[in-house]
């Protein structure tokens, strides 16, 4: 069976996903990325690594799913993952906005209370 992934690109993918994994780890260690958000990225990198090492993997999975052009599966998976993650971020954003509103109100109310005590 002909490989979909030539050697050069395989090497590139392995190096690329390793660097990406390293980058994520560094962000966590430096405290710039919270662990709960890093999980999704680590899972993504693991996926990339599996297919970087397992040369026939993409072909086999594509055939299994009935995808004729194997690389299209990569795009499909990537776009799907991106959309899910964007929704996830929107949810977090909404939560933050509500928490910020509650905090701002609480802060303003406390300040008003202090003023009353001073007066």
């Amino acid at each position: 069976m002909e490989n979909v992934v030539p050697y050069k690109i395989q090497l590139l993918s392995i190096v690329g996903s390793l660097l990406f994994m390293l980058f994520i780890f560094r962000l966590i260690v430096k405290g710039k990325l919270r662990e709960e958000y890093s999980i999704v990225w680590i899972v993504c990198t693991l996926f990339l690594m599996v297919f970087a090492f397992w040369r026939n993997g993409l072909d086999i999975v594509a055939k299994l799913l009935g995808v004729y052009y194997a690389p299209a599966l990569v795009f499909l998976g990537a776009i799907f993952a991106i959309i899910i993650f964007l929704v996830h971020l929107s949810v977090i954003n909404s939560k933050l906005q509500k928490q910020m509103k509650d905090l701002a109100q609480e802060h303003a109310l406390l300040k008003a209370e202090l003023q009353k005590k001073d007066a």
Partner: protein
Amino acid sequence: MEQTGTSKNVLIIIPCYNEEGNIAKVLASLRSVSIPGVNIRALPVNDSSKDNTLLEIKKLTSVYINLPINLGIGGAVQAGYKYALKNNFDIAVQFDGDGQHPADYIARLIEPILNNESNVVIGSRFLDKQGFQSSALRRFGINYFKYLIKFMLGVTVTDSTSGFRALDKKTIRLVCDYYPDTYPEPEAIVIYTLNALKIKEIPVVMKDRESGQSSIGSFSSIYYMIKVTLGILFIYIRLKGNGKRSAL
């Protein structure tokens, strides 16, 4: 108003965003209001105005709320409701800081609550069709909300976007839990109705704003209608799903 026992405390919440030219007049008009058996306290809420609204407020009163970040009209008004709940007010009146709302109607606005006839009273421009009637585009939007709310809830509110309203204690407690951030007025009506609160509309005469900008530009009217429609639909589904309990 024959009230048995002690007098009622009424908080007038005045959300202000860039109202330096109006707030003094608004506070003066409120100071001239006196209702027997009722203590009135005005509470300006400065929603992080970019102009000198805060300075103007400080000159006139020591009782105010100054929000550290801009929350939008809903967040500002809700801060006022939280103040009312904390300080045990009997009634909270929302009164816009732009000078459009008539202070001399406050007595009539709170009367149905004092008489235990309703939980929420809304001042409507369209019951008697007098005074400032808003632009044609806005009236179209308001009519659209009227039919949408009537279709979904079976109640008729002629001026669902009116911010001139009085809430009783039970309603104040409810809106402290959840109140929409932007363009909250029509959505709030859905929340009240699905919580089995009694809404009453009374006719009022409003003025056109004297200075400053409205919170809704005519160019964003379409966005306003879409946002409010979505808000109404989702709050309806959410509350129906919760078995008509509270909004969160």
